[in-house]
């Protein structure tokens, strides 16, 4: 009784990537939007509203500050977002259609987890919405940066950002590691990240291989600590430095066995803000992991 009631009250919007379909649909939306906007030259939107945390970051990096009407409340928290400093002082929204409309936007940027009803509602009142998917490779990341830059009417800034990412990525050159370290990721709520996600490529570029590929888990699945412990990995990547607010989700990360494992394998803390969204922070994630790889190789910790 209580459970069903409870489920209805707090039906979760699951904040993690799902596979398939999204990318294609995002592209279709994008084409439509680009066709709309692509009158003679890109008219630069002047009142951009982002209702997705990942879009916030790109908008803050690519658009003129004067052209940004609002970003989400999530981006104002430095533990959560890389551009919190820039987001401060901008009006925040909670991703609701009504809020977005109150800014009279000439462009609304939405992400893959925006409520369908919100998108539908915005579409009904004629607000120009562009949806973007979850990038699954670095190529997707480059494409997404360019696409967002295009709808913002700032293609040069998009190119510059992509060039910056590529230049910094090239400096970290461990992607040809002949015998990669075995790594496994432990995220809040005991989730691990499997193959077919951007994280997989981040690991590869840092000279690691994702042990989750050996388990029968999808792109994003819960993994019992018992199974994780017996994988005998070289590197355990935990998603720490998260919220200071109490969180049951991080209980698994503070389980005594994680402390015990840290004496047997290298534990790397990687805050999720570095590898959640398409952007230059991904390079920082690769660098941190590459440094860990170097540490392990130097210290002969590997098995």
């Amino acid at each position, binding site marked *: 009784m209580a459970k069903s009631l409870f*489920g209805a009250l707090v039906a979760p919007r699951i904040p993690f990537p799902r596979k398939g379909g999204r990318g294609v649909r995002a592209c279709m939306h994008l084409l439509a939007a680009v066709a709309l906007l692509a009158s003679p030259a890109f008219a630069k939107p002047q009142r951009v509203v982002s209702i997705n945390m990942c879009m916030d970051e790109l908008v803050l990096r690519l658009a003129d500050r004067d052209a940004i009407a609002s970003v989400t409340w999530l981006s104002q928290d430095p533990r959560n977002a890389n551009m919190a400093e820039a987001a401060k002082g901008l009006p925040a929204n909670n991703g609701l259609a009504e809020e977005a409309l109150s800014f009279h936007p000439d462009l609304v940027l939405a992400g893959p987890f925006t409520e369908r009803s919100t998108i539908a509602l915005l579409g009904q009142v004629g607000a120009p919405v562009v949806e973007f998917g979850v990038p699954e490779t670095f190529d997707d990341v480059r494409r997404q940066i360019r696409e967002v830059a295009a709808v913002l009417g700032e293609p040069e800034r998009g190119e510059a950002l992509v060039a910056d990412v590529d230049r910094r990525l090239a400096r970290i050159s461990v992607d040809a590691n002949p015998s990669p370290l075995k790594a496994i990721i432990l995220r809040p709520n005991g989730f691990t990240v499997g193959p077919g996600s951007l994280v997989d490529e981040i690991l590869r570029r840092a000279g690691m291989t994702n042990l989750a590929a050996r388990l029968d888990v999808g792109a994003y699945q819960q993994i019992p600590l018992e199974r994780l412990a017996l994988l005998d990995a070289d590197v355990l990547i935990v998603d720490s430095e998260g919220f200071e*607010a*109490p*969180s049951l989700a991080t209980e698994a990360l503070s389980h005594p066995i994680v402390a015990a494992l840290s004496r047997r394998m290298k534990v790397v803390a990687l805050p999720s803000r570095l590898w959640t969204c398409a952007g230059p922070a991904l390079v920082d994630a690769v660098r941190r992991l590459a440094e860990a790889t170097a540490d392990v190789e130097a210290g002969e910790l590997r098995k």
Partner: protein
Amino acid sequence: MSGAFRRAPVAYWPFVAALGGVALVATFASLAIGYVHLDLAAALSDIAHGRQSLPALVLVELRLPRAALGAVVGFSLGLAGAALQGLLRNPLADPGVIGVSGGAAFGAVAVFYSGLAGAFALAMPLGGVAGAVVAALLLYALAGRGAGTMTLILAGVTVNSFSGALTALALNLSPNPYAAYEIVFWLMGSLADRSLPQLWLALPLTLVGWALLLTSAPALDALSLGEDTAASLGFDLRRLRAQLVAGTALAVGAAVAVTGAIGFVGLIAPHLLRPWVGHRPGRLLLVSGFGGAIILLLADLAVRLIPVHPELKLGVATALIGAPLLYGLIDRMRREA
């Protein structure tokens, strides 16, 4: 309700010992069987020699707390179910169904998300106990003194939905944006990835709760003859009520704070075992405790062995068994009435 099965009561203490033995076997099975095969002999010899091998770590840090908590929490739920059924003289009284677990969950959640849990270690179990006390008192005020089944269930629905609403409110006010998401999983109840410190936190409160409940056996037997008779036999009913409410709150509150709300165990165990002890509520206490432990341990083995991904939550498994039973029970009581 008593007319359905009548079985010649078996000898009491041998029966208790047999159930205790089965519970012990189930606990060892829970140690030995898990998600992955573990070489128990190697793990035990590593532990004996003080080697921190992976199998030894998994056995001590993961399997041991899980098995022990399964036994302890199951015992608490079965015992509390039997005690509540004796107190309210109603076979539908289960800590989950009538809202004591819900109240405990609210107490634990409020303590956790307010940050109090970080302040001192016992805060979360104590929060669970406080929530359970409030729920049990509310319930007793509404449905005590031999109220009918309908009143009891309605009172339970009220307490349950109110504590559910308060839990949702606590989550709304939490500064953690993912609180609602993680609590949905937690409220389903689970023994996965629990730790030894959590066991040590819950155990003292639980043991006090057990003592309070188990020592109420003679009074519960007397109470089954009616309140006036029990009073004339020299039992202080007000003291009995306080003892049972406190005992249930301590046992269930501490359990829920560690494992989340696991429903129906307190309903199934007394129901299955009542005919074996001659329908005496006092004798039902200890056997229901062991019965609850066995049920919970077996259900926990099942969720680990059934190859469903993501894994079935323990509370979901017990509800799948318990809810049809509750339905059947209500149906039978309605026909007999």
